[in-house]
């Protein structure tokens, strides 16, 4: 217990943060580093709103305590592209995916993990891979469409 200072690589930049050692990465990103695009939905790994890439893999940032992350690399939605030009972001705009939008950073980060592993996923593979991420507005149909578009146009 107690505050610790941890070096992280966040969106390609070295950042040093001080926080309670059991603080989830989610809150360090949001309140210490002010990277608020990563969102708090449940805090227990059930919704996916807080999905970031940890060492390149989609990960729910609410589940990782900062004490275990020294030297690790984190990519957030803010670091996915400098100017919203990642193929998924372009596809998300073209398909007008978001409604309330709150889950969408997590959806896009998870989808980016999918396309990295499998640039040409089938519809079933998309549905399966995206299943940890919830959307209360029900944008799932458009999410699938946007991922298919990004795979096609990337």
């Amino acid at each position: 217990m107690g505050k610790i200072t941890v070096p992280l690589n966040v969106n390609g930049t070295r950042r040093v943060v001080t926080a309670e050692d059991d603080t989830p990465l989610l809150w360090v990103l949001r309140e210490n580093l002010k990277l608020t695009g990563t969102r708090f939905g449940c805090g227990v790994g059930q919704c996916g709103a807080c999905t970031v890439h940890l060492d390149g893999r989609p990960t729910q940032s609410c589940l990782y305590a900062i004490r275990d992350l020294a030297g690790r690399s984190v990519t957030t939605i803010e670091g996915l592209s400098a100017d919203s030009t990642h193929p998924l972001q372009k596809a998300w705009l073209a398909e007008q995916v978001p409604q309330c939008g709150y889950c969408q950073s997590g959806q896009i980060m998870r989808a980016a993990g999918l396309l990295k592993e499998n640039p040409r996923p089938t519809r079933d593979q998309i549905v399966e891979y995206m299943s940890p991420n919830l959307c209360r507005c029900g944008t799932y149909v458009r999410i699938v469409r946007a991922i298919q578009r990004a795979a096609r146009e990337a």
Partner: protein
Amino acid sequence: MTATKGVSVNRRRFMVGAAGYTFAIAAGIPEFLSARTASAAAGARQTVMNAWVTLSTDGTVFIMSPATEMGQGSLTALPVILADEMDADWSRVQVVPAPPDDKLYGNPRFANAMYTAGSATVTGYFTPMRQFGAQVRYVLVENAARHWNVPMAEVSTEPGVAIHLKSGRRLAYGEIAAFVRVPDKAPEVALEPLESARFRLIGTDIGRIDVPGKVNGSAQYSIDVQVPGMIYGAILRQPVEGAVPDEIGDTAARKIEGVIGIVPLDYGVGVLADSPWAAFKGKNALETTWNRKARGWSYSSSGAFEAFARVANDPVRKGIEWDAKGDVHAALKRAARVVEREYRADYAYHAQMEPLNSVAAVSPAGDAVEIWCGTQSQTTAVAAVAKALNIPESKVTFNGMLMGGGFGRRGNRDVEFIVDSVLMSKAARRPVKVIWTREDDVRNGRFRPLYVNRLRAGLDQSGSIIAWHHRVVCDRVLAFMDPVRYAVSKGRDNIAMRGTEIPTYDIGERLAEGLQEDTGMRTAPLRAIGVGQNAFANEVFMDEIAEQLGVDPVEFRLRNLKNAPRARRVVEEAARMANWGTQRNGRGLGFAYLDYSGTQLAGVAEVSVDRT
């Protein structure tokens, strides 16, 4: 586009528009707008055309939107209506959320409150937005005509440009802004009737203005707000409505690193901390006992199902009539056959993705406050905050943020999470962001009530429905969520009862009656309010009657929609799209139809049952 004779516009709205011209924000650029107009080009000047439109000499058109945005798109939709009538170039439009001011920006559908709900936003604002847009266009055309010294009738517009066709001269709206004279009184402009109006924007596919920020993380919800010097708060709220803390055991909570203070509240206990994580830990470490006086303590939902069912079946218990036609009891007596069924639904949680939260910065003297929150009603948010601090509403600076879902949980009476942040900031004498955890959000939910729906249908010899009797037993909603409206409702609980009307089904005698129970539970509207459960009961009942008669469910609905051609078309089209009638291997189709405020809806679900 040309302005021609047309529909007359409600006089009162028109005068509001006139007030907007003359007094409301005539003197310079108001403060809430100046931050937004900073995005116009350097050196550009802005002119307030009316309470809704500010024009910049660089061509930017700032349009107010009184709607709050939770993903439904009305923050964009309302300015589109105005821009269309104004003939603005949509690519030059910047939408500005309207500040709380009921007189200028209220929705006539809600007694002029600013409140985005009930599918009432576009319908409520449609004509006023057209009117204000037409007035601005009129003033621009008038100014262009004067500039060219030609009759007004010779000036027309294209998006963002006034045109004198005879001479080929053109003036962009931004150019007109440089010399525009805005009249003291709003001009009377008749609107083209809808049947003949030609729209450039309405009916086309326009990207929502909130979408770009939602694909790169920059969209701002209240939970994202950062204020200098801000700390964090978590709230342990009363387990049932009305419970009060007896003893607060905070020894363990105070020992948690990062916890700054404990704030006793009438309805719970607040924890102030230097991070959200420490605030949550502090809240979880509280050991609080509660007085046991509140009504809800003895309540059990499983017991309620049986109790509600008994009420539904008790012929002595008369409900409050919600919707009626003819004499249903007489019709049931002469029916050849009566079908009767009961349907139940448990409490439903809103589960909006963004847990409730709010940020407040109370002045050190406690006499003013700035708040950042996601609310469906600017009006009630400001009123509740002013009341909590006992200050005038003019001392409340309101920042309406995007909502990570509303669904009725950020409605006009859902102010408790906003008041949380205000009381915590007052106690801390610093800005405070209060965040409910997901667990808080569920425990402190205000649910769609628990329902028992009892339906009886009387059929004649030919199998036609001649009587339809719907008894709805559920927790009362309106009394909890809107006591002001409840007081004048005569017990007619629209939130609980909506959806029991069946205006399009061709049934001679019908009665829907409400038996709302005071259980002490917190209740709220949830997406389409009572329609969710009541229409479910209606439609499953239709299926069950069809099955009794051995008639196909789609065919049965069509038989009962003889006098509703739009409904028939929707039912037929949905069935066609679903290849209704085609057998699926291991799967079945379910059908439902609904008239929702005149909108015709039909849905087909393809389902399989996993019996393992």
